[in-house]
């Protein structure tokens, strides 16, 4: 540990976090308004089911495993790392404290060993996802730089948080600074990459389902 890590921690807790939060909020509101304002052509056909039902059905249908579309590896590791991320981010006591300070809302934390295990499983699942992406020729062909970038952006806070909690490799101060810095980079990138799906995932599925519910395509 040295003065650099302490100065870095002070910066990421202070100006760095505020810059990241500002870009995150600005980008998120900007992109959501822009997406919404794109609009859609008015539907001329009547829905084949009750209005909106096809949208909800599509949300459900595309969220459950489907052997004809994707491998079980993708489903299992995908669900595993998403659930792991949610548990780690929303139920680790220091994270809840941060959210409480930012939003005013708080809830009970999970026992730390549970969150610790969730983080470790998340890292493994993300590793499986990358391996699958690299080994599967179709996935590899379809992958672009952004896919690998977002993978790294997602992994970095989990790994640095895990190392930080266990004091592995560097001093706690250094690791905490790196952890916060990785979260801030993630916050900056979220609105401008496909990571914005944390907001758009279900609305876009609903809109697709609703659209197909008014065409000849069964949904």
């Amino acid at each position, binding site marked *: *540990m*040295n*003065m650099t890590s*302490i100065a870095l*921690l*002070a910066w990421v*807790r*202070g100006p760095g*976090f*505020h810059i990241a*939060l*500002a*870009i*995150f*909020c*600005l*980008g*998120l*509101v*900007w*992109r*959501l*308004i*822009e997406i919404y*304002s*794109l609009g859609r052509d008015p539907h001329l056909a009547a829905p084949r089911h009750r209005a909106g039902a096809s949208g909800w059905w599509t949300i459900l249908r595309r969220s459950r495993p489907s052997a004809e579309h994707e491998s079980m590896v993708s489903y299992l590791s995908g669900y595993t790392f998403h659930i792991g991320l949610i548990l780690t981010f929303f139920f680790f*006591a*220091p994270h809840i*404290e*941060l959210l409480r*300070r*930012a939003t005013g809302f708080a809830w*009970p*934390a*999970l*026992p*730390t*060993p549970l969150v610790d295990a969730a983080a470790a499983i998340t890292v493994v699942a993300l590793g499986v996802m990358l391996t699958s992406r690299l080994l599967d020729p179709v996935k590899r062909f379809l992958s672009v730089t952004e896919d690998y970038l977002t993978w790294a952006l997602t992994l970095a806070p989990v790994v640095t948080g895990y190392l930080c909690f266990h*004091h592995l490799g560097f001093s*706690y*101060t250094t690791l*905490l600074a790196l*952890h*916060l810095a990785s979260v801030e980079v993630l916050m900056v990138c979220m609105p401008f990459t496909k990571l914005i799906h944390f907001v758009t995932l279900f609305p876009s599925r609903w809109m697709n389902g609703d659209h197909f519910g008014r065409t000849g395509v069964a949904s």
Partner: protein
Amino acid sequence: MEVAIAKGTVYEALRAGGMSRRAFLQACAAIGAALALPPGSGRAIAQALTRTPRPSVIWLSFQECTGCTESLSRAHAPTLESLIFDMISLDYHHTLQAAAGAAAEEARREAMAANHGRYILIVDGSLPVGQPAYSTIAGISNLAMLQEAAAGAAAVIAVGSCAAFGGLPGAAPNPTGAVPISAVVRNRPLVTLPGCPPIGAVIAGTLAHFLTFGRLPECDPLGRPRVFYGETIHDRCYRRPFYDRGLFADTFDDEGARQGWCLYKLGCKGPTTYNACATLKWNGGVSFPIQSGHGCLGCSQPDFWDGGGFYRAAALPFGPLTGTAGIAAAAGLATGTAMAVANRKKRAAAKRAHQPITVADLEKSPGAQP
């Protein structure tokens, strides 16, 4: 004027002060334990102190509150802390010496001349290099006095967070331009013992190490002895199991506080603070702040005054987040609206510029088959 030059060994001085040989050996064993040395080290320390002359110590106090000295001199029972003053020949110390004014300064100079290259220089307080006039002693600036005293010192010990890192005088906006001792002392062996104040046993242990082995203990990159500052308060805290179980006190008077749960949420800086409070403790091993129900302030870390508030958790960001988020969201609203308007105009322009193509147009195009 007659100056008390160091005479006799440490052991002789301790015996003259009424310490029995048994108590001396016990103290040596305690020092060895505090330094995390092997079990037999107490004997080695005893042998060293038996033949080591009492070193002359010049103690300089600059921009400080005297809390470090108070901490050391207020021990009620014979402890490691109290031993410090028996192990050394304290030839200059503002608060503790009888001499005053010109006589005191003369005593300092004579002691330095008589023990040139052999005395230990202890410094508490930071240096006002930005505005030297803020702290002078007998008309001498702190910087000049330190440079003069450090030149002949065998080792320099920066006691307390002010001397180690600038401390309170160095806190933002640092009106005096305060710097730590390490900013000036570069060519002498230097060890920093931060804390506000530092633990007395840490000072005693460091002195004993120097007297026994003739060198300062191994230090971390901040110049702190690893033996005392090698682990965080959090890692050695008896409340750590509550942190691991997610059990926290939310206020100082809730059920969690009464149950002795973790004080992380109340701003405890234990996770980022390297010190020995949780193991050596204070007041003869009676307690330490967390045991008394208050979170660690992180006083042995650089710039702990500017850490964003004592009652804000260690990893939490500074400043009002709602304000930042609100302003950014408003900016996002404006940007998004502007982009939406621009997109609509673009689409409208494209629609206006659109020219439908008929079959007849295609047939007229060059290369078309007749």
